[in-house]
């Protein structure tokens, strides 16, 4: 039997912590629970978990400072748990180095999918450090070919501009994870002194028109309101 993956659940609400622990244990994860930020930091070092599920609203310290501390020495995947209305918290956490977020309330299947995706991404990066990254990303009818720098939809080559290609390639490399507006802007255009994301939006609108059947009901690129974009990773 393969070694169980260990998830550190950082949650001050006992009932939610219990619910999450039950879901994860019954799905073959090894679960450890921390109720405070201090406890969490101690456990990250002593128990070496494979993933941290971090609730941002902790009693003793700001959740983002935990991300910062962990990120200063580890690539350990972190999924942030946050409330719906708090887009700024999410953006801040992602920019601080969190891998993904999940919005309360969430169901077991959504939670498990996010955890699987995050562990897989981390595993892929860790297993072959320095290895050539994947040559292709494929989901549904969409293929991103990194070698030839082209995107195919149902086998047909889609004509993208340089920047459009770079955006979708970036989303493809992080498929299933949300990339914030700021991150994308920085990666594609460098510094963004104007502080607005109009240029990214316009490029995104063009990409949608080229790869989606109905841009108003996208199948591949999802918008996370107020946070960023996420490329579909399959069901």
């Amino acid at each position: 039997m393969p070694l169980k993956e260990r998830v550190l659940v950082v949650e001050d609400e006992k009932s939610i912590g219990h619910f999450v622990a039950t879901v994860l244990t019954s799905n073959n994860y090894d679960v450890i629970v921390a109720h405070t930020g201090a406890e969490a930091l101690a456990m990250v070092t002593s128990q070496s978990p494979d993933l941290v599920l971090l609730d941002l609203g902790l009693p003793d310290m700001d959740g983002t400072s935990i991300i910062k501390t962990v990120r200063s020495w580890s690539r350990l995947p972190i999924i942030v748990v946050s409330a719906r209305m708090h887009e700024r918290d999410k953006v801040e956490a992602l920019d601080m180095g969190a891998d993904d977020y999940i919005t309360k309330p969430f169901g077991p299947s959504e939670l498990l999918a996010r955890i699987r995706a995050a562990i897989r991404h981390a595993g892929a990066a860790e297993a072959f450090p320095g290895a050539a990254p994947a040559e292709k990303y494929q989901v549904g009818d969409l293929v991103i070919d990194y070698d030839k720098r082209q995107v195919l939809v149902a086998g047909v080559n889609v004509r993208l501009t340089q920047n459009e290609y770079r955006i979708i390639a970036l989303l493809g490399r992080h498929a299933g994870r949300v990339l914030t507006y700021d991150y994308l802007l920085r990666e594609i255009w460098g510094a963004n002194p104007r502080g607005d994301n109009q240029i990214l939006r316009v490029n995104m609108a063009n990409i949608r028109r080229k790869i989606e059947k109905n841009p108003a009901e996208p199948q591949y690129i999802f918008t996370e309101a107020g946070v960023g974009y996420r490329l579909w990773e399959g069901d």
Partner: protein
Amino acid sequence: MPRLSVKDSLFTAAAIMVSSGLCGILSLFGSGDVHVPLVFVLTVLVVSRLTEGYFYGIFTSIAAVFGVNYVFTYPYFAFDFTIAGYPLMFLSMLAVSLITSALTTQIKQQEKLRIETEKEKLRANLLRAISHDLRTPLTSIAGSTSILLEDENRLSGEQKRLLLQEVRDDALWLIHLMENLLSITRIGGEARIRKHLELLEELTGAAVHKFRKNCPAVHLRVTAPDEPIFVPMDIVLIEQVLVNLLENAVIHGKTLTHIDLSIALEDGMAVFSVENDGEWIDARVLPHIFDGYGVRADEKRGAGERRNMGIGLSVCRSIVKAHGGDIYAENTPPRGVRFRFSLPLKDMKDRADDGAKEGKEGDNAS
């Protein structure tokens, strides 16, 4: 306590100067100075209407009486209230301007008060609806879980499953309710909503994605303009409006087979339309559907109506109004219901009269 502000002081000074100038010009043409008091009473009216509190109106009245006496009446450029007829004339001028000023200010304050009361009423209705909506599912959750804990061995697997299903449905409903309430706090108070330019397709994409997660079986068609269009909005709130309208259609449509979500541009507005082919809304409920207590009529029709959307729809209206738009509901022949709401394409700076217009929509859908 006079509430003084630089803006109002400057405005008052300017008004007095303009009317003095006007009187000066008029007296070049005219015989006599009959127009002078009238011009100044008008000035008092304008100042009282457009400044804060009583102070500026009263100040202008007194300044006008002395100013007119000093400048425009014989002896010119000197005070003299003693000439025959003058005491009466200036006293009546003072009285007229003071009364004008006081009445104007009072009307203004009553209007403010009326809007406040209106808001208060909305809030009270909402609270009533909320506590009703909270009590029902909570009672059932507490009841079901107690039975499960106490009589575990006497219940069949099927019974347990049903009870748990209901507990989950009730909990989901409470979450839904809470998200709507949170939306209100986000609009609430005097703090304006934070609008950003958002792409319509990203809005529909996000809303549809969320809706699909909850109701995967419903056939939903989305149509939007071909070109990318930016609209100023708080996207999280407008997403909530769309999800509310879509879920509302599913919950109440009963015979519904599909929903159409379409967006068109009309007269500087983005007009959203959520249309289904489900059951009509009761004509008696329709005019009050956004009030947050349309609930009551439903309730009497039977226990099955528990999942009302009273709060959801009233939240929709509050959100749309706060964006400077409007929302309507109508039954469409031969069957089906259409909800339409609009958002201005340009950010309108003034929403001063938002509160005053509330409460008359719902029955005049275009």
